[in-house]
């Protein structure tokens, strides 16, 4: 699937982006402690984690001082390179078939919508897809997923609202095995990472897939809303500890938030961003591209 620069375009919507702020900074300040302190704040104001912003800026500072560089373009390029390197610290997973993808995350980040789009993505890549409606908790979540399954023209395995989500997973796995389906996508209920019982429920679903479908490649994705702030790190860390994560889906990039927290997730937790959601339509999903993201981000 080709790139149409959607990620970059989505990020470009922001009126005050990092580069305009940097331009102002250059006009105002010479390179010095005050400059770097403000650069740090510019990054933080795009939701980059505080520790990561400090690290990135100190790296820029070192390089710039070592190279005796005072040129705006150079510093900007340097910052881009360092940010891109940070993203590349977490390599993209290679997708192999048959596979199971489970989508987890807190409430309201866009898991159900994401699954609809990803189903469509695989269908367009000529793969067979089945969806498991394992969010049995939220009112009408199953109906919502059903609509998306219809739109993407894929099968859906569902039970009653309020039933055991692990049982849905079990049935979906059986169905995928029996039919030799390439991709099984599992929707899960939104849960705040601090709720232990709900995290245990998730671990149980995780075990069911591991036990019942060992021959499949099993990927677990955390869905994160780009408008989230510093709490994204805490979410990623707790979900990673609970079920181990293979990647992140960054949603709602079509707003004015940029999801700067991903640098900390890639750099410190080594979880790669795999997909990006850039709109409400079925095809508004892109494979994540670090270079393009940084271009749009700065």
């Amino acid at each position: 699937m080709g790139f149409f620069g959607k990620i970059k375009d989505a990020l470009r919507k922001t009126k005050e982006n990092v580069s305009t702020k940097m331009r102002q900074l250059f006009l105002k300040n010479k390179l010095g402690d005050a400059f770097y302190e403000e650069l740090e704040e510019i990054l933080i104001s795009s939701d980059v984690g505080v520790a990561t912003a400090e690290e990135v800026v100190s790296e820029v500072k070192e390089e710039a001082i070592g190279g005796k560089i005072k040129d705006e373009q150079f510093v900007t390029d340097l910052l881009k390179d360092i940010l891109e390197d940070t993203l590349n610290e977490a390599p993209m997973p290679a997708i192999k078939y048959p596979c199971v993808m489970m989508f987890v995350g807190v409430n309201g980040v866009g898991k159900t919508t994401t699954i609809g789009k990803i189903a469509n993505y695989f269908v367009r890549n000529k793969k067979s897809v089945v969806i498991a409606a394992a969010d049995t908790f939220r009112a009408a979540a199953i109906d919502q997923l059903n609509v998306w399954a219809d739109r993407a023209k894929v099968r859906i395995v569902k039970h009653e609202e309020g039933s055991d989500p692990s049982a849905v997973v079990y049935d979906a796995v059986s169905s995928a095995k029996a039919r030799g389906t390439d991709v099984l996508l599992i929707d899960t209920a939104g849960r705040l990472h601090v709720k232990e019982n709900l995290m245990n429920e998730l671990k149980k679903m995780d075990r069911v897939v591991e036990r019942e479908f060992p021959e499949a490649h099993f990927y677990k994705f955390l869905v994160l809303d780009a408008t989230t702030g510093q709490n994204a790190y805490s979410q990623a860390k707790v979900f990673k500890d609970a079920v181990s994560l293979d990647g992140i889906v960054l949603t709602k990039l079509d707003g004015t938030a940029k999801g700067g927290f991903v640098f900390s997730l890639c750099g410190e937790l080594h979880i790669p961003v795999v997909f990006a959601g850039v709109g409400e339509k079925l095809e508004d999903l892109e494979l994540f591209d670090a270079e393009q993201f940084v271009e749009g981000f700065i």
Partner: protein
Amino acid sequence: MALFSSLSERLNHIFSKLTKRGKLTELEIRQAMREVRIALLEADVNLKVAKNFIAEVSEKAVGQEVLTSLNPAQQVIKIVNDELIALMGPGNAKLEVASKLPTVIMMCGLQGAGKTTMCAKLAVQLKKQGKRPLLVAGDIYRPAAIDQLKIVGAKAGAEVFERGTQNPVKTAKEAVDYARKMGFDTVVIDTAGRLHIDERLMEELENIQKEVEVTEILLTVDAMTGQDAVNVAETFNQRLSITGVILTKLDGDTRGGACLSIKAVTGKPIKFIGVGEKITDLEPFYPDRMASRILGMGDVLSLIEKAQEAVTEQEAKALEKKMRENSFTLTDYLSQFEALKKMGGASALLAMLPGAGKLKINESDLDEKKMERIRAIILSMTPKERDNPQIINSSRKRRIALGSGTTVQDINQLLKQFEQTKLMMKQMRGGKGRRLPF
């Protein structure tokens, strides 16, 4: 045991290098405020909001006297905390009532903020107040959003008005007519989640506002929102002039700085907070709790408050003088224990006290029963004995033991402990900086 958060730790560090008490100087404030700024940013307070806030607080803090009961770091935190509370308050959990019924409440916000769930929570709240709410399904875009509202509405025991995917403006109008006819006094309109930059959908909200008389427009915001909260709140407020804010998902571990940003740019009250997935999980907003949460240091703050309540300034000064002159007596010792008790007992205090570990206080020395016994012993002494413990000989010890229902060993132990405390105080006077926090 979370002894203290990083902010107080870092502030203590700054002041340990700088201050000999007295008044807060500009330099100290500037250095401390850099730390406060980082703390606010880590809590997702918007950068511009944080900068403005700090400029104001700094101005107020310079030249302020450090309260005797606090150290400079605690003093700065107290000033910051007080200002945060002032800025975010007052919370206002009251929903306006229209002079001509029905009262119409319109929900708005980004996708996934929790509007639909919040409609049901509000319905529960309204019913508790004896009102008859009607929920209106105005989200015609998200698949199954109407079904979701119907289900949560049923859980709340509230009727749901829907017209399928008919234009929401028309639906809202019909719903209000219906409410008037059927005797519903409050109408809560659920709307689709929308990006603030989505021109078409923002217009739709404006049209609802034009067509029906809306009393309350409540912006629902996810408490985990980052720096962008400012853009979102500003745009919604400019277009619709919202009347209040509801913060959702505060049952997570987010520090919730978005709250401060939103209040700062809109000036509108935070009306409610969502604290769970059940439809009864709705609470009024308390600015003081939110301030502690944003600073990430509830415990230290409550300690500061308790210390202020328990020890008056004069008492603290007198104690300090006694420590300086080494004239600390058993009477003072007792009053220290009394103060401890006022502050919630030793174990509660220990948990909150920065640096308590370093004072080599054995926790078992401070258990509540033991404190009661110490109290009894000291109260069984004559005033003369309390001021001059060295006169307590074995016959006096027997008398005191009898009077307090303890044993001579207990008396010996207390006297030994008292001597150790005096010694410790002497050392603390010698070693720079560390003061008893009370």
